[in-house]
């Protein structure tokens, strides 16, 4: 019995079984008729169907592929990390321990090893959402990672594909185009901006907003004309907002000059006179100022806050004096809050430090300071009895002396706040003393497993 005869006979039996032997008789004459029993069509059908199905399963010929076999990945150049390091990374990925993952990546890159192949899909997924970690992840993917990203063709992994083709800008998916833009912008900011400009009129709103936001990498005054003249006047609000956010980081922009002019019109620090705008100027919207205030805040105060936050800080003179003047007015809270936003946007460490000297209510500003300045400031604050939660805002890997200062300030349950960022030497000491903290244990093992 050939496979096709077998299949045809089985199909005939299925047809009868579907409508029932009450309505349709069992067709006679099959090659397995000897399994049939007189006067028992149901049993005969079941027995023959079982035999046919078994025969079909046993005789099935595995099919042949008519496409080319996959392209093999290039030979690896770096050694694979140790099994202990693999297990640690798997644990971090499962638990979503982002700081430990970042540290693992840095240590692996320093040791010159690559991640185990089994962890590549999770690492590539991790880079999908954590753009800031992509370079660190790419450093440990080996040859296999980019190969896998290309082979699987998942758009979320396109950032890992080495050197995107330049023609991807015209033809690629959004992810591929963003990958290309990031790569180009990193090497040659002007060329990157030209890419965005070349298709800006045809691109959809999501692309336009994403591409403008991507210009944050390598942002300079050279981007001002494009941002000011095209992106800021876009039809869609998402794009205008993205442009205004970047322009506020450029104190030399026309945008900043307009904001400075508005700020000067409403804030007279020397005289202690602050008069928020009376009405929403139609020009405000074009510069990304929102009209309707969040609940709990007056509309006029809200407009003023946005203006001050977008104005160049240099216009206020020395930060210490400006802050002192502000505190003599009824508007101190609004002004200091707005300046804090401006310090972060304009990456102005002097202003950030001055504000933190006045108030610790805005600890996010610690991220603007150079690490050693941040550590010195927090150290002083802790000695003066500040809340230990402050250390959570110092997100860089801490120096050894600062780590020891922190240990003096936080004890017992507070240790878990410090554990992810303490200096490795201090971590090793604590673990040797038997400090029962899972993060410390894991960091100590990680440094051991990934030592170069």
């Amino acid at each position, binding site marked *: 019995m050939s496979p096709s005869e077998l299949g045809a006979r089985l199909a005939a039996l*299925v047809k009868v079984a579907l409508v029932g032997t009450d309505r349709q008789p069992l067709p006679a004459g099959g090659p397995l008729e000897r399994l049939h029993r007189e006067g028992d069509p149901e049993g005969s059908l079941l027995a023959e169907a079982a035999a046919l199905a078994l025969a079909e*399963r046993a005789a099935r010929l595995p099919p042949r592929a008519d496409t080319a076999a996959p392209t093999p990945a290039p030979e690896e150049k770096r050694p694979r990390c140790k099994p202990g390091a693999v297990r640690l990374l798997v644990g971090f990925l499962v638990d979503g321990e982002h700081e430990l993952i970042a540290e693992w990546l840095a240590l692996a890159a320093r040791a010159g090893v690559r991640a185990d*192949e089994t962890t590549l899909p999770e690492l590539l997924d991790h880079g999908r959402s954590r753009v800031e970690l992509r370079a660190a992840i790419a450093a440990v993917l080996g040859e296999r990672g980019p190969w896998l990203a290309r082979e699987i063709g998942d758009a979320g992994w396109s950032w890992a594909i080495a050197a995107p083709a330049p023609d991807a800008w015209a033809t690629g998916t959004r992810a591929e185009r963003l990958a290309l833009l990031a790569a180009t912008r990193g090497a040659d900011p002007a060329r990157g901006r030209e890419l965005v400009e070349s298709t800006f009129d045809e691109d959809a709103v999501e692309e336009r907003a994403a591409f403008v936001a991507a210009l944050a990498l390598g942002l300079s005054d050279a981007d001002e004309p494009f941002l000011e003249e095209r992106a800021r006047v876009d039809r869609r609000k998402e794009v205008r907002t993205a442009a205004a956010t970047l322009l506020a980081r450029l104190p030399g922009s026309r945008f900043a000059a307009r904001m400075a002019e508005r700020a000067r019109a409403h804030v007279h620090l020397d005289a202690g006179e602050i008069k928020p705008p009376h009405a929403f100027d139609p020009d405000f919207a074009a510069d990304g100022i929102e009209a309707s205030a969040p609940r709990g805040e007056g509309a006029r105060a809200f407009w003023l806050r946005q203006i001050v936050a977008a104005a160049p800080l240099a216009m206020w003179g020395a930060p210490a004096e400006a802050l002192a003047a502000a505190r003599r007015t009824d508007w101190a809270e609004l002004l200091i809050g707005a300046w804090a936003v401006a310090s972060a946007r304009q990456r102005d460490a002097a202003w950030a430090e001055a504000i933190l000297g006045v108030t610790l209510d805005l600890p996010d500003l610690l991220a603007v300071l150079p690490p050693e300045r941040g550590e010195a400031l927090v150290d002083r604050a802790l000695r003066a009895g500040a809340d230990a939660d402050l250390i959570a805002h110092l997100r860089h890997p801490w120096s050894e002396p600062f780590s020891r200062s922190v240990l003096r300030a936080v004890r017992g349950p507070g240790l878990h706040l410090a554990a992810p960022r303490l200096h490795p030497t201090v971590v090793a000491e604590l673990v040797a003393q038997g400090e029962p903290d899972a993060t410390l244990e894991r960091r100590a093992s990680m440094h051991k497993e990934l030592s170069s």
Partner: protein
Amino acid sequence: VTLTPDAVLALAPDEASVHAATAMATPRRWVTLGADEAAVWGEIRGGDLYRVAVLIGEPAFRCTCPSPKKPCKHALALLLAWARAPGAFAPGVPPAWLVEWAEQRAKPARAARAGESSVVDPRAQQRRAAEREARIAGGLEDLDRWLRDLIRQGLAAVQGRGYDLWDAPAARLVDAQAPGVARRLRALAAVAASGTGWPERLLERLGLVFLLVEAYRRQAQLPEDLRADVRSLVGWTVGQDELVAGPGVADRWLVLGERVEEDERYKSQRLWLVGLHGKRPALLLSFGPPGTYFDRSLRPGTILDGELVFFPGATPIRALVKTRNHVEPATGEPPGHATILEAQADYAAALARNPWLDEHPVVLRAVVPQRLRDGWVLRDATDRFVPLARRYGDEKRLAAVAGGRPITAFGEWNGHAILPLAAFVEGRHVAL
């Protein structure tokens, strides 16, 4: 015996145990610590003062804590501390409680239970067996009638009927003490709802159930091996103590892969082994209620030097460990099939011996994972391919491990698709 910290942590039942054990594996945390050539022991303060011991060679774990996990975090931590710093353990004579436990373990469990069974009246046992035979016969009689009714009325009526349709006759079979047939019947609900092509798949399975009913009725005419299969499929169990007492098969057994499944009724663990010398496949099957922690002393990628004893059957594969000389990390590759065609021929031969064969272990050498139009496959050097089971979800990992090059893959083959469980790449075992 040398054990690396990695090898110790690989015995952990879950990630939480790894963390807990790592934190406790410092000598400072222990009240006492001691060791001789065969065992390490110690005491640690938890909710109480726990006595912990590990027989290193097996390894076997013992702890007085109430944790259901095997091994518990204390036993793991003890072994881990020893692997890291054996110098911290005072060499000495094992305490009395450890000696007592080790002796109890060494005493064959079957001897203890054989003592009990001698109290049982053999006539009463025979009578109970005869009563069960009668109940099974009645249950299968009813099932036979029910199957015929189904075919008479037509399978079209099955669609949209849901689980109730199958649950009623299945419950009847459980009452009749034929749980194996009940399980097969319940599984049909999913087949009936499996989309395009369901009538053919359903008819095939119904045919096999019918075949089982017929075979059980006529078991006297079957060869002994196949009769053992049929009785086990219906629900008779073989006494494991009796079985272990029988002759064993000695080999170096490579643990190829593991599959743990859990549903609302029970949890199961399948450990697939292959004899490196005799090339014989074996399955160590464990069952428990949901949440059970299975023995983790045999891990995929290790070799068990010892004897297995096989359950009787036409394609004997299920086995028990009879003796365990030692366990060591695996090196090299398992024996396997050079082509998919060869593996298919092997499967067909096994199917001819046991038509109810469910999952068949297969080692394919030199296959490349690849995504084709209709999904992921393993492709051999002759360009023939087998699809990966649809419930397998780790295709990207498999592709990453292979890197577009031929690997040795191990998995369960059901005649349609393969469920990958492990790969051997450049001599390295990778669980999938």
